[in-house]
Each structure stands twice: as C-alpha cells, then as structure tokens.
C-alpha cells in the first residue's frame, strides 16, 4: 500500500509514544527480578557435572528470566500494547495493613485482638463498608474463630496473653 491512511498513521504514532506500555513494564519487572535473583544466588557455587552445585538452578533460571525480560521489553517497544491500569491504592494499604496488623499482634496480644484488627482494618478498603454492620460481623467472626480454632481444634494460637496469660 503506497498511500498510508492518515488515521492509521497517527494511531501508530500514539501507540508508539506510549512506550511504557504493559509489555515493556512487564519485561522490566522480569529484568529486575532476574537481576535480584542472580544477585541473591551469586555466592552459590554452580558446581560441576558430577556435582551439580546449589547455584546452578537459581543462576540459570535467573538468566532465563532475564532473557524473557529482554524479549518482552523489545516486543513491547515494537508492537502496540495496552497500558497498565491504575492501582487501587486504598485496597493495598488497608488489606495489607490488616494482614500486617494480624502478624504484629497475634503473639503479643492474641487472637482476640489480632483477628478483629485484621478484619476491621481490611474492611476499610471497601467503600461499601458500613460501620455498625462490620463491627457486629467482626465480633461474631472472632467469636466463631475462637470457638472453632481454640475450643474445638486446640490450635496453639494465643488468645489474649495480656489478660488470660495464654
């Protein structure tokens, strides 16, 4: 086709201008991970044929990952790909916050504190959350978890160390 369609041309241009598209970012992520993996495995000995060392697998896999990273970056720059959609920051902060809160408090403060903390904190991630409803639900769930995991299954999970001592 000698004469190029102007619409196509501009579309091509705008696609090329979003060079930080999903493929490229994916490739960069792989490259970063590969580099990190190789760095972590660096002190390990790759060994020899009769004594395959502990380093062979991690290093060669890291190299392979890096290779794919390069491929993705290249194909991302050349082709026309979608952009990465936005992150939901609120979800990340509150859900992960809830999980971390559980991890931090379960041993010193016990299930009766860590559980509700995790639930309430993570519930804040959703705009639909209704305060009274979630409070009641949390209370019921915590009680349920206590009955199930502690009373019934005798899991060695702390309940409320500050008050009960176990």
């Amino acid at each position: 086709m000698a004469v190029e369609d102007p619409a196509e041309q501009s579309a091509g241009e705008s696609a090329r201008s979003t060079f930080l598209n999903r493929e490229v970012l994916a490739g960069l992520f792989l490259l970063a991970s590969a580099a990190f993996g190789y760095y972590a495995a660096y002190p390990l000995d790759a060994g020899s044929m009769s004594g395959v060392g502990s380093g062979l697998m991690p290093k060669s896999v890291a190299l392979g990952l890096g290779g794919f990273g390069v491929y993705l970056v290249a194909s991302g720059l050349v082709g026309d790909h979608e952009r990465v959609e936005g992150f939901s920051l609120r979800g990340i902060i509150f859900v992960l916050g809830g999980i971390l809160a559980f991890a931090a408090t379960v041993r010193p403060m016990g299930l009766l504190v860590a559980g509700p903390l995790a639930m309430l904190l993570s519930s804040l991630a959703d705009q639909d959350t209704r305060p009274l409803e979630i409070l009641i639900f949390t209370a019921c769930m915590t009680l349920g978890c206590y009955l199930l995991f502690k009373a019934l299954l005798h899991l060695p999970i702390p309940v409320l160390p500050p008050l009960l001592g176990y």
Partner: protein
Amino acid sequence: MKITRRTAIAAVAALGVTAMPAFAQYPTKPITAIVPFAAGGPTDVVTRLVTEHMSRTLGQQIIVENIGGAGGTIGMSRAAAAEPDGYTIAVGNMGTQSAAPALYPNLKYDPAKSFTQISIVNFTPQTIVSKKDLPPKDLKEMLAYLKANSEKMNYGHAGVGSISYVSGFVFNSQFGFKPALVAYKGTGPALNDLVGGQIDYMVDQSLNVIPQITAGTIKAYAVAHPERIAALPNVPTTKELGVDFIFSAWNAMVAPKGLPKDIQDKLVDALSKAMDDPAIIKRYEQLGSTAPKGADRGPAGLQKLVEKEVARITPVLKAAAAK
C-alpha cells in the same frame, strides 16, 4: 493521696498470693511441648507417647506444638527464648542438640548452655543397611567391599543435618570410605530408592528401617549398639562382630534456661515415670528404641551426652564442610 498502711499490706499480700501458687502448685495450666519437626516423625511420635503419660502424672494437659524448619533449629530457638516458667518445654534430637552448632553458623542457641536439661527421652540405635542385591553377606565382608569399591558406590541420606547424614559421615570417615552422597528430602524418599536399588547403602535409625528389614526388601548388616535390639533379634551388633562403631540417635527433653529447680524436678520425675511404664516400654521396643537407664537419666546424664556428642560430631562435620 495517702497510701494507708492497710492498702499497702493488702497490696503486698495480694502480690504474694498470686505469685506463690505458680511455683507451689505447678502445673496450673496446660504445658506446651515444642517438637521442632513435622508431626508423625520419630521425635514427634515419641514425644506424644511420653507426654501423654506425663500429663496424667502432672495433672495437666501437655499440648504438642510442631514448629518445624531448618533441621529443627527454628523450634529449638523458640524454646530457648521462651519463659522459664515450666509451661514451655521442648524435645530435640541428636541433630538439634549436637550437630546443629557445626552446621548452622548463625545458630541462636547453644545446646550445652541455653537450656535447662531435663532428660534423654530415648535412644534409637543406627542400623547399617544396604540394597537387597549388594554382594557382601555380613558386616566384615561389607566393610571390605566398601573399602575396595566405596568410590563407585552411592550413600543416601535424608538431607544435610539429618540423622542419616551425620551418622553416615561419622561411619564413612571413621573407616575411610568415599562414596558419592545422594541427598534426599527426608527418609521416605531415601528409603524408597534404597528399596528400588538406586542407591547402595545407608546408616539410619532402626525405627525407619525395621519394617523393610523384616520384610526382606533391604539387607541389614549390623546394629551399631552394644546389645541386640528386641525388634531386630536376628541382626548382629557391631560390638559382637568386633567392629568399633557405636552410634545412636537420641531424643532429649529440655526447658529454657533458668527453670526453677522444683519445676525441673517435677518434670524429670514425670518423664522418668513415663519411661518406666510397661506399655511405653513395649512401644519403645516396637520402635527399636531403648529408654535411658540409671545414670543416663536426668539432667546430668543429658548434659554429659550433649557435651560428648558435640565433641565427637563437630570435627567430623567441620572437616567435611572444609572440602
């Protein structure tokens, strides 16, 4: 604000009243026994056996908590760092209490110093076994065969730091054998390949190999123990064959350092009673184990064992790592 004398006396009395019973009437609540390995393994099985009996003597439940990882050192580190109030005890094995210092440079505990010793729980003698088709007919032939062929042979073990690894090292280095070491993830897979003939020999706890020996799927050359064990009456001992190789795996009960003496005494006593129970003796026999007797029992016996084993095993392992 005036603190009346009455209030002060009442406060002190209250403190005294709450502090006392914890020691006088131990135990007042359930005790946690940490097993630094997965449920169902040799240490776990024997712990559940004895703690079930001890629960009855002490009048409080003993709950087994499995905290596995890093050859058992994670669980034992947790135990060493726990409150020495008698409500956390642990059962480690030869790996965690003797081999660990040589294998883990960043170990967070010292088997000889970080614990209040309670007692050895059991001994499990090692058995020298091989695949069914290995030519030698008895131990003397086996040793000669190994001397001539060890470099072409394969020794299987359950991973660095496992009992089969440590005892294998001591065995091979003592006699100067140089087999290729094939690592497995646990005793199951290693035994599987031994039965299948993919590897040549192993030195492992009797508990693991008794069923296979009895069924004839593998060959047993000797038990590395002064006397024959009840579960393997037809397998000679290294002692009677004149070979100097005695090696037992063992499990030991410990508590965090600083345990009050009277609590320690109670635990030692309860464990001792468990080990004298006829039902438990019978179960021990089934598992190819023996309970410690006489001077081996109790804190002093365990401390002596730990120091002896650390001294014996550490140079062997360090030499291997240096290669």
